[in-house]
């Protein structure tokens, strides 16, 4: 961390390698398409590099990085509505030995859930992703989103409610 903050690119590369999957997945869950997710993940690391000198260490590095990533995603939502692109993973699933019809049904269901998540309001979406996929405790999510634990739990509850309704409508 200190070496990265001092401008050591090799040290920063190690940080990138360590956290790139988490950051990319967060972005992908947020926007629902690989192109935007890749661009946003890159942008999050660029911002993190430029802000490393201001990282005081009062929060965990991952909390700080998640916060930057969520802000990058929220800023993108404010300027551009992401386009959800269904993934075509059937070939990959077929290769796993699963029956093709079962695989297609499972993938269709997954795509419905992904699409429903992308339609959630930004804060509910961020809360759901950080809790359900990144398994972060509520207090850490509250720090990332700059909100209270109660508000985070309420957002999570409403996000699940919206998803339930959205999936039932399909």
């Amino acid at each position, binding site marked *: 961390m200190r070496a990265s903050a001092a401008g050591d690119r090799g040290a920063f590369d190690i940080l990138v390698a360590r956290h790139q999957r988490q950051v990319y997945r967060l972005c992908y869950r947020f926007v629902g398409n690989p192109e935007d997710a890749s661009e946003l993940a890159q942008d999050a690391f660029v911002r993190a590099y430029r802000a490393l000198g201001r990282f005081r260490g009062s929060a965990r590095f991952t909390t700080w990085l998640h916060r930057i990533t969520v802000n990058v995603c*929220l800023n993108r939502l404010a300027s551009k509505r992401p386009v959800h692109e269904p993934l075509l993973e059937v070939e990959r699933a077929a290769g796993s030995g699963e029956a093709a019809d079962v695989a297609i049904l499972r993938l269709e269901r997954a795509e419905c859930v992904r699409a429903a998540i992308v339609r959630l309001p930004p804060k509910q979406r961020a809360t759901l992703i950080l809790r359900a996929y990144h398994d972060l405790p509520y207090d850490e999510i509250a720090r990332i989103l700059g909100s209270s634990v109660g508000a985070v739990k309420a957002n999570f509850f409403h996000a699940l409610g919206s998803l339930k309704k959205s999936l039932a409508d399909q």
Partner: protein
Amino acid sequence: MHHLTDEQIVDTAEGLADRALSAHLSGCAACRARVAETRAALDAVTSVPAADPSPLFWEHFAARVNAAIDAPAPARSWLAGRLAWLGAAAILLITLGLAAARWPAGLPGHETLTPLATTQGSPPGASDPFPGTPRLDGSLEDDAAWAVVQGMAGDLSYDDVLEAGVLPRPGSIERAATELSPEERAELVRLIQDELKRTGA
């Protein structure tokens, strides 16, 4: 015991319920149903696997990040520069206009300063939503454009505004002003002085 709150429903769906909650659930079908629905939605969410890109993507990712860090900041076009200082000038002029509307007799501290007029139509002693702050005088309160802005913003909550991406950016005007070239600053001063002369403020 009352029915479970939303937070308690979430806790229970995630398996974090304490004994008191469990005891209530055993006797309350309505809460059990809510927990079951929430748990089903949570299961649907967590069953969706991550969609990672190919291994090749990760091999090049750090290099792309480094290239983006090294890339020069996009140069501001001539038009963007002009728009930035014109925006700053417009904001300053609006601020001055509002100040002139609120202090028709002069600027604060001026010996001819008179107490601010109360809003037309408001009876003396009417409740002031912002006690301790000066009230707008009638000339602005009656302004049609101001009424439209008030009408549109009246029902907005702070969270709605944040979620819409209209983020408050304290200091952005100051930042824009610091980015002006000496020529642009001189032009801004000239514009403000012209406007002050024109309005007689």
